[in-house]
C-alpha cells in the first residue's frame, strides 16, 4: 500500500492516464456483458412469435455509466482511500467513549418500536397507517424474528442452514391446517406449531450430524426443497399450489375478536369506525412480542451451558468433543430451538396472510434470511435487526417509488427491480463489509472486563 501512495505522489498525470485506460476497458467489458441482454430484447408479438426489440440507447447508457464510474473509482476513490488508510495508520488510535444513543440503543429502539403504530396512526390517520404498519413494520419484524431464529443455528452453533424456510413452512401449514380442520385458536396452535417445527428440526438435524460446512448447507437446502415439493404434490392434505385459504384470524386472547361478524369485535366494542388497521396494529404488537421473545431466549441461552456449548461448537468441534461436550445433543438442540422460532414465525405468517401456499416457501426466502444473518454480523442481534431493516425495508421502499414513473415513463415499475437490487446489495455489502454491519461480538465469558472482540477473531464454524 505504501508503494502505491508513493506512486500516487510521484505522478498525478500518470494516474489520469491509467484511469482513462481502465475506464476504456470497463466500457469495453460492459459492452460485451450487456450487448445481448440490454441492447436486444426478445419480445412476443401478437402472433406469440419471438421478435427482437433493439435498445441501443439503453446499452449506451450502461456502457457510459460503467466507464465513467470506473474512471472516478480509479482517479479519485482509490487514491482517497489509500490516503485515508495511510493517515489512519499514522494517527494513534484514540479511545472514544460511545455516544448516548449507542449506549442505550436497545432501550431507544424498543421504545420507538412500541410507539411506532401510534406514530403511524397519528401521522397518517387510521386508514393511512395500514401501509406503514403492515408493509414496513410487520414485514420487517417477521424477517427480524426469522433471522434471529436462524441466528441460533448459524450464528451461535455455526451450523450453516440453507433450508430454514422449511420450518417456517411447517409452522405456517400447522396453523393453517389445524385451525381450518379443528377450529383451534391461534393461542393454542402457536406453541403446537413451534413444537412441530422443533420436531422437524430434530428429524432433519439427525441425519446431518456428521456433515460440516458447505455439505451441511447443501443437504439442508435439499431438505427445504423436499418439504416444499411435498407441499406442492401432496394435494389431498395441502391443496397443492392452490394453498390453504380462509385461515382464521387471531384474537386478543379470546377477549376481543377481529372477525367483523363476531359480537365481541374489537372496533364495535370500543365504538370505533370499522377498519382493518386495528387488526394490523394488533399483529404488529404480536410479532414484536414474538421477536422480543426470540431475542430474550437467545440472550438467556447464551449464558446457559447449552449456549456456551453452541458457541464452543462453532469455534472448534474437535476441542468441544474432547472436553466432553455431547455434540449430538448440542447440535440437535440448536436445530430444534432455531426451528421452533421458525415455526412460531410461520404460524404468525399464516395468521397475517390468511392464506398459505408453497409459493411463499421457496429457497429464495431461506437465502434472504441467511443473508440477513450474515450481513448483520452473525451472532449480533442488533446487527441482524439493522440488516433486516436495511435489506427488507430498503426493498419495500422500492414499491413506494412511484414518482420514478414520471422520470422513466409509465412503463417503469420499480417493484421489478426489487430482487435485482436485493441481490446486488447482498454482493456489495458482503464485499464492503465481509463481517457484516456489526463486526464485533460481545463475549459471553470474560476475565475481569468485558471487551468486544473483532468478528475476525471468531470462527464461522465448520458445522
Amino acid at each position, binding site marked *: 500500500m505504501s508503494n502505491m501512495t508513493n506512486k500516487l505522489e510521484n505522478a498525478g498525470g500518470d494516474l489520469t492516464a491509467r484511469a482513462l485506460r481502465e475506464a476504456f476497458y470497463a466500457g469495453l*467489458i460492459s459492452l*460485451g*456483458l450487456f*450487448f*445481448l*441482454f*440490454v441492447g*436486444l*430484447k*426478445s*419480445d*412476443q408479438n401478437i402472433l*406469440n412469435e*419471438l*421478435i*427482437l426489440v433493439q435498445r441501443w440507447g439503453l446499452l449506451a447508457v450502461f456502457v457510459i455509466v460503467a466507464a465513467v464510474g470506473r474512471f472516478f473509482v480509479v482517479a479519485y476513490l482509490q487514491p482517497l482511500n489509500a490516503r485515508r488508510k495511510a493517515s489512519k495508520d499514522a494517527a494513534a488510535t484514540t479511545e472514544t467513549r460511545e455516544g448516548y444513543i449507542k449506549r442505550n440503543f436497545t432501550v431507544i429502539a424498543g421504545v420507538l418500536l412500541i410507539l411506532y403504530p401510534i406514530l403511524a396512526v397519528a401521522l397518517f390517520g387510521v386508514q393511512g397507517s395500514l401501509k406503514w404498519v403492515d408493509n414496513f413494520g410487520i414485514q420487517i419484524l417477521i424477517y427480524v424474528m426469522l433471522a434471529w431464529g436462524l441466528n441460533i443455528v448459524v450464528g451461535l452453533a455455526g451450523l*450453516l442452514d440453507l433450508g430454514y424456510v422449511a420450518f417456517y413452512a411447517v409452522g405456517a401449514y400447522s396453523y393453517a391446517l389445524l385451525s381450518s380442520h379443528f377450529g383451534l385458536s391461534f393461542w393454542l396452535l402457536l406453541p403446537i406449531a413451534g413444537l412441530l417445527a422443533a420436531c422437524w428440526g430434530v428429524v432433519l438435524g439427525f*441425519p*446431518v450430524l*456428521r*456433515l460440516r*460446512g*458447505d*455439505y451441511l*448447507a*447443501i*443437504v439442508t*437446502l*435439499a*431438505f427445504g*426443497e*423436499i418439504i416444499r*415439493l*411435498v407441499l*406442492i*404434490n401432496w394435494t389431498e392434505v395441502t391443496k397443492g399450489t392452490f394453498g390453504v385459504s380462509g385461515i382464521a384470524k387471531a384474537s386478543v386472547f379470546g377477549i376481543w375478536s377481529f372477525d367483523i361478524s363476531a359480537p365481541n369485535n374489537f372496533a364495535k366494542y370500543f365504538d370505533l369506525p370499522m377498519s382493518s388497521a386495528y387488526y394490523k396494529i394488533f399483529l404488529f404488537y404480536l410479532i414484536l412480542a414474538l421477536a422480543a421473545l426470540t431475542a430474550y431466549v437467545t440472550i438467556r441461552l447464551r449464558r446457559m451451558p447449552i449456549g456456551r456449548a453452541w458457541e464452543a461448537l462453532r469455534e472448534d468441534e*474437535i476441542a468441544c468433543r474432547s472436553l466432553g461436550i455431547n455434540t449430538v445433543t448440542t447440535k440437535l438442540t440448536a436445530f430444534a430451538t432455531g426451528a421452533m422460532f421458525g415455526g412460531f414465525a410461520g404460524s404468525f405468517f399464516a395468521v397475517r396472510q390468511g392464506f398459505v401456499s408453497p409459493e411463499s416457501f421457496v*429457497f*429464495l426466502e431461506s*437465502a434472504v434470511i*441467511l*443473508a440477513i444473518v*450474515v*450481513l448483520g454480523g452473525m451472532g449480533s442481534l442488533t446487527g441482524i435487526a439493522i440488516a433486516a431493516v436495511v435489506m427488507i425495508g430498503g426493498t419495500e421502499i422500492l414499491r413506494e417509488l412511484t414518482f420514478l414513473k414520471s422520470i422513466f415513463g409509465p412503463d417503469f415499475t420499480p417493484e*421489478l*427491480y426489487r*430482487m*435485482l437490487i*436485493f*441481490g*446486488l446489495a*447482498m*454482493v456489495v455489502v*458482503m*464485499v464492503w463489509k*465481509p*463481517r457484516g454491519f456489526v463486526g464485533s461480538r460481545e463475549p459471553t465469558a470474560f476475565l475481569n472486563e468485558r471487551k468486544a472482540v473483532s468478528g*475476525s477473531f471468531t*470462527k*464461522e464454524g465448520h458445522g
Partner: protein
Amino acid sequence: MQYFVQQLVNGLTLGSIYGMIAIGYTMVYGIIGMINFAHGDIFMLGGFAALIVFLVLTSLFAGVPVVLALLVMMIVAMLTAALWNWTIEKVAYRPLRGSFRLAPLITAIGMSIALSNFIQVTQGPRNKPIPPLVSSVYDVFGISISLKQIIIIAVTAILLTIFWYIVNKTPLGRAQRATEQDRKMAALLGIDVDRTISVTFIMGAALAAVAGTMYLMYYGVVVFTDGFIPGVKAFTAAVLGGIGSLPGAVLGGLLIGLIESLWSAYFSIDYKDVATFSILAIVLIFKPSGILGRPEVEKV
C-alpha cells in the same frame, strides 16, 4: 424393454446437460473450495444468449443452415457467459478470497438472485419459446432417437475430450491442478494463481453456456428461473460423482439424468425432483466423498 431403453436414451441426453454444468461446479469447488451458487444462472444466461443470437440470425439471414446457426449460437453464448463469469469472479468473489468461508457463498447467492432478476428485468418474465431447430427423429430397433439427442450427446463427448485434454495435458491444466492441490505452494512455484482461477471460471462458464444452448435446443424454451433447478441438479451430480473430480462430475451428471428419467417413467413425475434431492442428501450423509472423489482428510 424398448420403453426402458427409450428412457435410457432420454436420461443420457438430460445427463449430458447436467454433466456439462456440473463440471463448472466441481472445478470451482476443487480450486477455491467454494460452492458457486450463481453457476446455474450462468447456465441460464448462456441459454438466453443463444436465444438472442438465434433471433438475430433468423431475422438478419433467413434460411441460415442449422449447423452454422447452432455453432454461432454456441460460440457467442460461450463467449458471453465466460465474460460474465470472469467479471463476477473479479468483482464479487476475488475480494473475498481469504475471508471467512461463508462470505463467498453469500455473494454467490446474491449474484444468483441478481442474475436471474437481471434477465427478468431486461428480457421479460415470460417463457421464451423458439421454433424447433432440428426435428428429425430416427427409428433404431423401435427406439426413437431424435437428432437433437444425438447432437447433445456428441457435443458433450467432443467438449469433454477437449476439456480432458486441457486439464491433463497442457501447462494451463497443470497449473490448475497444482493450484487445486496447494494454492500457496503453487504461487511460490511461479504459477499465477489469480489467472488460473480466472481461467477456471471462464472454462466452467463456457461449458455451462454450451449446456444452456443445448437445453434451449432440446426443450425449445427458456425462462429466467431456469437457472435454479438445473443448477441444483448439476450440483447434486458433482457431489454424487465426488466433488473436485472431473470424470466424477460427468458420471454424476449421467446418473442423475438416468435416475430422473427412469423415476418419471416408472414412479411419479411429480416427485422426480424429490428423488434428486433425496439422492443428494443420501449421498452427502453416507458417502460425502462421492463415487470418484478422494475422502477429505481432517487436519487438527
